[in-house]
């Protein structure tokens, strides 16, 4: 990975204090993001996908800390920056939207005043131009009747509208990166489709790079340029959408693709069971974190931690058995 990427995250490790000393909720996550790209981080709960997103913006919970790694934005290291310096990054260079839009806005201030505030902390704009820009942003995120919404309180709006407002606030200072953490999980299917469509539209118009964090493989399939599959705080696989969906190499990715019902699934197909449950995050196996549930795990897997290896250009897998695994046809999709 050269230094030309918009955002480069390398070997990031997020630790929490636990019963037996610190444990890593995110371990060795490495990726980059380019302009105009949608990178999906997919994983189940506890996979560390949200913590990865938060660590980029320095918004981790109080107890957590980044124990290792680097986060470079346009070549500039973000991890060592002071809180003051981060104020200038958040919302201006890198923005974030969250899972439940209904509770992500301050309920006692109007949408307009929150937008104007967000604009004015980053620019020297006078109040009137900030109001104009706010209305323009509301229009850009396809909110009908921006003037009315400008004066509304968040609780007067629906979930879909709130998420549009969140996006307007996130994008009002023209950031180059947007981190979207499960932006549609709390929304209805038809509204979800609207929001996802909007994100793609905005990406096409502004060439913003988007990190889309989700548990929903359908969304990944519909949106992603590149994909990171995470499990228990570790990257299992990373590659283009083509790589991951058509040629998944990690046993976890393969299992995941076969255990999610999809619309184009043949009749009579039985969903694959990934046996067992995710191990306790404070008590992870020494070797590969997936070894307790992996159908291919051998003794070696439980002792040796697999490295993230580049199997084909841009296609990374973290599995000791990857050469054997790649022979196996992946799922029913073939």
């Amino acid at each position, binding site marked *: 990975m050269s230094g030309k990427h918009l955002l480069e995250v390398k070997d990031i490790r997020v630790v929490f204090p636990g019963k037996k000393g610190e444990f890593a909720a995110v371990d060795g996550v490495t990726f980059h993001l380019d302009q105009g790209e949608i990178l999906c981080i997919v994983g189940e709960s506890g996979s560390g996908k949200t913590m990865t997103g938060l660590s980029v913006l320095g918004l981790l919970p109080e107890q957590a800390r980044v124990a290792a790694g680097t986060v470079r934005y346009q070549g500039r290291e973000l991890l060592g920056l002071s809180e003051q310096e981060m104020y200038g990054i958040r919302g201006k260079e890198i923005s974030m939207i969250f899972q439940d839009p209904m509770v992500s806005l301050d309920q006692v201030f109007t949408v307009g005043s929150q937008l104007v505030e967000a604009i004015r902390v980053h620019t020297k704009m006078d109040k009137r131009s900030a109001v104009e820009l706010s209305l323009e942003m509301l229009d850009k995120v396809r909110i009908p009747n921006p003037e009315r919404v400008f004066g509304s309180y968040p609780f007067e709006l629906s979930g879909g509208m709130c998420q549009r407002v969140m996006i307007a606030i996130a994008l009002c200072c023209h950031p180059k990166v947007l981190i979207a953490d499960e932006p549609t999980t709390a929304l209805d*299917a*038809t509204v979800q489709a*609207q929001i996802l469509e909007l994100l793609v539209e905005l990406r096409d118009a502004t060439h913003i790079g988007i990190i889309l964090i989700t548990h*929903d493989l*359908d969304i990944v399939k*519909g*949106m992603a340029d590149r994909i990171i599959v995470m499990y228990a705080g570790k990257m299992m696989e990373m590659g283009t959408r083509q790589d991951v969906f058509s040629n998944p190499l990690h046993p976890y990715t393969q299992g995941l693709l076969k255990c999610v019902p999809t619309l184009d699934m043949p009749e009579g197909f039985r969903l694959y069971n990934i046996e067992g449950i995710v191990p306790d995050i404070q008590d992870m196996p020494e070797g590969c974190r997936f070894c307790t549930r992996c159908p291919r795990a051998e003794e070696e897997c439980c002792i040796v931690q697999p490295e993230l290896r580049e199997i084909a250009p841009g296609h990374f897998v973290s599995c000791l058995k990857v050469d054997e695994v790649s022979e196996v046809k992946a799922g029913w999709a073939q």
Partner: protein
Amino acid sequence: MTEVLLEVKELKKYFPVAQGMFYRRKGVIRAVDGVSFQVHRGETLGLVGESGCGKSTLSRVILQLFPRDAGEIRYRGRDVEELDRSQRSKLRMVFQNPYGSLNPKEKVFSAIAEPYRIAGGYSRQQIEEEVLHLLGLVGLSPAHARRYPHELSGGQRQRIAIARVLALEPEFIICDEPVSALDVSIQAQILNLLKDIQEEFGLTYLFISHDLAVVKYICDRIAVMYLGKIMEIAPARALYAKPKHPYTRALLSAVPGAADQLSFERIVLEGDTPNAIDPPSGCRFRTRCPYAEEVCAHEEPDLTSCGTEHFSACHLLHKLAG
């Protein structure tokens, strides 16, 4: 066609809403507004719709957790209100949040044993045998019987809830979003478990979900609800291959990544679902329907046949062929 187990006819459930200080501006949420369907023995009927469409209310009215305002609910031909206790125990429900349906201070064993204790007539040893048997059925070990709900994962709790429902040989189980709160790998385990026990015990399911893919996987027939009404009801294959109602098409269009697989024109809906307090006149979907015509505003469409066991409530059925 096999025997009809559950029949719902013109069912209505309204919730009064009082607003203002002196409770003046009264309105009514028409959560379920004239719903009719049948569930046949051994089949799985799916009920899909977005939040607020009334699917959960419907299930609770069927189980008499809420009184109905109008209509009939017949189980094996008898009104559910007239069922005796043993018949009533044949109708069970699995909830979305298994943690909420388990008593946190009660061990797994007594949670599963409870139906037997309530029914009475079981010796202590019999109950213990039954509980261990049920735990085995849902893929848990006897050791789990001594745990508390908070010591279990979400998937394990849902297994406990299913084990409890399986006590006393049920016939008809309403599954209300049973996998929505679970991670995908666990979701598959539970879906497969539900399929397996259905086969083993000849169970009949009413399966409520917002996830079209999950419903497709597990259901034989599917009813699509919108604002308290059934918009379309059809065998699963027909519904996905040839959806007739614009709302069904919109739902299928909304599945991310499905755009290139649709057999019909993609519909991306504008706006949000209208309020169920004041549903639109005529067809409820007309305010968001891209095909709506004048007739849709004046007349409420009935469910009309448009294929084998396929019914759709739309005035424009003939125009939207394909």
